[in-house]
């Protein structure tokens, strides 16, 4: 029989824990934060380029600038940032309570801006809008086609909380944008009035989301040629199967439960 004393167990436990961490670090597995390198687009015209859709709230303005080769000053100016180390997720608290119902300036706005600035594809979420400062940067630096910038400006918001060209006082919640501005990948427009009772299908929509919204999963399977794991995003499934997400999205929206 091999007996272990209390002190031996304590020392062995700490040694195994810290030794395991050291081994994990040596093997490159000990990462306590997400890498600030967005995933690469897997296929199509932009294969190998960083995906704006993978920008996360924990990115700083400097991370965004570095990842997409955008001048840091431009990104900070676009979102009226306080410095290069400020995080993208600071936007949500900054604009909280200042925007019309159904609109949001947050992480997806940064993805939208980067998409317009770089021409890389991103499917914007319903309600995502840009601050006017971002439109000014896009125009000043001659980025994106004028039509795309115009469309984005129609749903941009000034520092006072006014949508488009409206004044603050004249910005009732009914002035919420009636259509999504096209992103570089020209996602299909979703009218706020005609949006399904269920959530809109965006890049991060998962099979579980579809199920919870009441989709007929048999029809979904028919469209997709299969069903992925619950937590898998529809877009990831499409990428893996070589399907065009925009087409699948349109088909799925066609069978959205009433």
């Amino acid at each position, binding site marked *: *029989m091999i007996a272990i004393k209390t002190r031996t167990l304590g020392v062995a436990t700490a040694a195994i824990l810290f030794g*395991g961490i050291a081994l994990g670090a040596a093997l490159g597995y000990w990462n306590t934060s997400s890498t600030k390198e967005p995933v690469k687009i897997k296929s199509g015209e932009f294969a190998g380029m960083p995906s704006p859709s993978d920008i996360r709230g924990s990115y700083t303005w400097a991370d965004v600038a570095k990842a997409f080769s955008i001048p840091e000053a431009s990104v900070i100016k676009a979102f009226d940032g306080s410095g290069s180390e400020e995080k993208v997720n600071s936007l949500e608290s900054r604009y909280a309570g200042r925007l019309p119902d159904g609109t949001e300036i947050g992480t997806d706005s940064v993805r939208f801006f980067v998409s317009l600035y770089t021409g890389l594809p991103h499917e914007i979420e319903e309600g995502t809008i840009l601050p006017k400062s971002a439109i000014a940067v896009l125009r000043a630096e001659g980025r994106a086609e004028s039509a795309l910038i115009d469309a984005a400006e129609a749903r941009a918001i000034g520092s006072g909380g006014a949508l488009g060209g409206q004044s603050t006082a004249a910005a009732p919640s009914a002035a919420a944008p009636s259509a999504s501005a096209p992103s570089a990948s020209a996602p299909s427009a979703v009218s706020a009035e005609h949006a399904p009772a269920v959530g809109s299908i965006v890049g991060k929509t998962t099979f579980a989301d579809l199920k919870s919204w009441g989709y007929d999963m048999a029809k979904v399977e028919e469209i997709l040629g299969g069903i992925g794991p619950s937590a898998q995003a529809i877009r990831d499934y499409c990428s893996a199967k070589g399907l065009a997400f925009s087409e699948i999205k349109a088909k799925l929206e066609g069978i959205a439960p009433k």
Partner: protein
Amino acid sequence: MATRSMPKKNGAQRFRFWVQALFFILVLAIATTNGLAEEGIEIPLAGSASLHAICPFGGVVSFWQLATLGTLVKKIHDSSVVLAVIGILLALLAGPVICGWICPFGSFQEWLGKLGKKLFGKRYNAFVPPALDRVLRYLRYLVLAWVSYATIVTGKLAFEEVDPYYALFSFWRSEVFLGGFIVLGATILLSLFVERPFCKYACPYGAFLGIFNLFRIFGIKRNAATCISCKACTRSCPMNIEVETAKTVRDHQCICCLKCTSEAACPVPATVELAAGSFDAAAPAVKEAAK
């Protein structure tokens, strides 16, 4: 009786206290530096790992997604998976030592329990009727099943919304859910009556690690040949396990704190030990040691 004349053996458990305190301070420091980093205040050399990054349970609930999709659950990092693997290795060796030695929330409850002992004396940790208690002990497996299912289905940290550990170490942060504070408050209150109430009835990670008690290599062994049936081992157990009747403790609730052993509560040397193998095989030598 030997029990009356034996000097109190506090050395080993004092050592355990300092190990617990070390990990408590370490986690507190990590939570604080992460909170300061979020505010833009960097402490040189301190790093800024989040609590999620050092939570082994986050790694456990990520296993499924990692295996099927190759990605981690939101907010979880590679380090959580490393810690989860280390936790499993430790559990294979000696059971849930993470619960008994490392988990700062377990230590927090244990320390609160000292106040409960002062308040209620021998009644402390004996308020819940045994029949009810036996059933309630399996609640944590329901919690584990719910958390695992919800995390697999949503790809998000389902437990975060009611996590008292996160609420305790991040109480100043706006991202802590009300549910976490409610569970934390209930745990603090209950700790005055019951030892480690969250560990016993609700902790999903404790439930996961507890399974390893059924087949761990080093178990709590009682030598029936030298045992004087004083029940000191059972009385000392924070998890109310009846050590006095077991040859090897296989209870899923054991946290391997070693309070029951001959180094602490048991008054007879080499009678309750953490060991691999059996007393039967070493009977002559052990009997000699016990004399």
